[in-house]
């Protein structure tokens, strides 16, 4: 498909990776619900398996519909490529499993989604991978935590749920000085609000379940590579720079100077762990991504109105939104997130735990559930749900209090959302009696 030489974000959101189907002329991307793809000949089969040709063999490794999603996400992030996964958690695991193993070490922000914290704090140690958690604003702590066996620095572009703004330029510099990559969970921001690669990050992953899909319909993840990190020069990654017995002694950094990480992640990670994305899921996420710029603009606009309402309400003790001057990362957010700070944020309700329960249960438009980034507005109490495995110290480090309530602002009329919140706050106020 011919196209403009240097298309902009909104154009890429609709066209990157997709062309009219050459077999049928279908304009929308077809859903290729097939496990496998017929070989033209035995020689063709062998050359596909041996990476002498590019193409699809089996949908656990790649699929034409899923590839459109991967290429579109990579285009929007400004990366060299991407791999779709069964979930955001699978994307994080794939990233780690590709470049770390028993004896490896990770330095991670303490302000992480609870599921990511679980993986790093409880599950990966069972496989010999240790993590040191640091407060994301403590730049010196990132540097101090790096060990000779550190393989990765990890943070969220906007920390969950306190919206700590990751100082990607400074943290990535620390990572690069040590010869390790920075992996950013960019779920809350999406590439419309921030492209971490332009700020220095090397790898990015998303829970595509959230804003990329945007409609609360499917679970999926995606891992993208900038192609900029020099794995060979680092000297810390024999997984990529030494012969791999699992694929005919392939040396991935020789095979592809900028695609080595994704080659191994696909050829080993999808092959062996198998946490691939269904093409049907990829298609639904693609539908969402076509309107990502429009939706994100509206998400942010609505969030700003709701934040302004809550910040002035007497029942609200604190609103944690980086666009407010009261947020500790306000200045950093202005520099790194000029388009806005997304539509997921937390606030602290005054009063008792009982009043908090009354507030959540009184909401009508907001749905009480464990998700964010839906087109519908959502609410949850992190301390008892998404982060319930964390002790008080870990909760405190992540900026979560017992009265913290997380909102995900959707695409409804902002006045209706404010009316719903206003009524629920009134109910909470009455519950004090």
């Amino acid at each position, binding site marked *: 498909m011919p196209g403009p030489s240097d298309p902009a974000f909104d154009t890429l959101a609709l066209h990157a990776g997709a062309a009219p189907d050459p077999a049928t002329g279908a304009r929308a991307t077809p859903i290729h619900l097939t496990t496998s793809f017929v070989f033209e000949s035995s020689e063709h089969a062998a050359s596909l398996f041996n990476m*002498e*040709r590019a193409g699809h063999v089996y949908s656990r490794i790649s699929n034409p519909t899923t590839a459109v999603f991967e*290429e579109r996400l990579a285009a929007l992030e400004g990366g060299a490529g991407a791999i779709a996964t069964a979930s955001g958690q699978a994307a994080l695991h794939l990233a780690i499993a590709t470049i770390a193993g028993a004896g490896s070490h990770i330095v991670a922000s303490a302000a992480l989604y609870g599921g990511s914290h679980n993986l790093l704090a409880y599950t990966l140690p069972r496989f010999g991978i240790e993590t040191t958690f640091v407060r994301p604003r403590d730049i010196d702590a990132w540097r101090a935590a790096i060990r000779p066996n550190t393989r990765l620095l990890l943070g969220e572009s906007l920390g969950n749920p306190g919206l700590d703004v990751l100082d990607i330029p400074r943290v990535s510099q620390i990572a690069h000085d040590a010869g390790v990559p920075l992996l950013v969970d960019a779920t809350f921001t999406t590439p419309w609000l921030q492209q971490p690669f332009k700020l220095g990050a090397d790898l990015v992953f998303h829970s595509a379940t959230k804003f990329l899909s945007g409609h609360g319909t499917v679970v999926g993840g995606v891992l993208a590579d900038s*192609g900029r990190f020099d794995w060979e020069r680092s000297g810390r990654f024999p997984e990529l720079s030494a012969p791999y017995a699992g694929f005919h002694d392939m040396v991935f950094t020789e095979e592809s100077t900028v695609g080595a990480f994704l*080659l191994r992640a696909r050829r080993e990670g999808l092959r062996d762990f198998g946490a691939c994305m269904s093409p049907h899921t990829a298609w639904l996420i693609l539908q969402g991504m076509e309107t990502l710029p429009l939706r994100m603009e509206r998400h942010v606009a609505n969030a700003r109105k709701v934040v302004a309402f809550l910040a002035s309400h007497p029942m609200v003790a604190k609103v944690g939104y980086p666009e407010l001057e009261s947020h500790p990362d306000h200045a950093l957010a202005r520099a790194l997130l000029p388009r806005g700070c997304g539509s997921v944020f937390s606030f602290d309700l005054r009063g008792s735990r009982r009043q908090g329960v009354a507030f959540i249960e009184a909401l009508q438009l907001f749905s009480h559930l464990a998700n964010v980034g839906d087109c519908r507005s959502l609410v949850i109490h992190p301390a008892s749900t998404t982060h319930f495995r964390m002790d008080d110290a870990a909760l405190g480090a992540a900026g979560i209090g017992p009265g913290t309530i997380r909102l995900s602002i959707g695409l409804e009329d902002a006045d209706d959302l404010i009316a719903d919140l206003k009524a629920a706050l009134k109910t909470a106020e009455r519950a004090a009696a």
Partner: protein
Amino acid sequence: MKLDVQGRSAYAYTGGKAWSDAGPCAVFIHGALNDHSVWTLLARWYAHHGYRVLAVDLPGHGRSEGPPLASVEALGDWVLALLAAANVTSAHLAGHSMGSLIALEAASRAPERAAALVMVGTAYPMKVSDALLATARDDPGKAIAMVNAFSHSSLASKPSYPGPGAWLRGGSSALMHRIQSDADGNLFEHDFRVCDAYAGGIEAARRVACPAHLIIGSRDVMTPAKATKDLADVLDATVARIVSGHALMQEAPDEVLNAMRAAIPA
């Protein structure tokens, strides 16, 4: 593998197979601010279909020691020196863009050592606009973005390169930035000036004795198809036209392989 060429360390990818001392040899030469990895699918295919393969990193690019050489003629000599270092008496020479001119020059300087010449994404003369040369000198990052935009004709090249899920424009940009940042000095401007200054193409073509083949992208705006006619006439070359931009091996890997198999049979 690493070779000593003209007293300096040189790297050549061997297609995923150990180097052997016998058998036909195919040499793949990359273009400006690239490295061997633009050829790996094709190189790997030939390595597993009876050929000894040398997909080189030119001096000062990727894994080969610098400095970069100053002219297409010097680079042609370097390719011949590389063959000698690898004990190869005769080879099929394939090049892309700037690499195609280097292959042409090597085939003309030692006609008896060239079994075939394949020029992919080529043009002669390979003039570079003053504006692009100035941008490459003053703002290499901007020039990389310009060339990357000009080199791709599609937002959806399938099955992508090196495989599904790769975003070609992003990969090409990352590669060019990597090669530029690893080089001493402004390698991008250097390579463009090497292309722009080459004036011996027709004379070189007259000296070529082996079969010659041109593989051209019908949507190539970097080296437009119309800029190959004189070269094709003098070389008496076959011309394969593929629906692609300048990044032929990435946009149309299967089509390039098919065209190349007609030139270099397995």
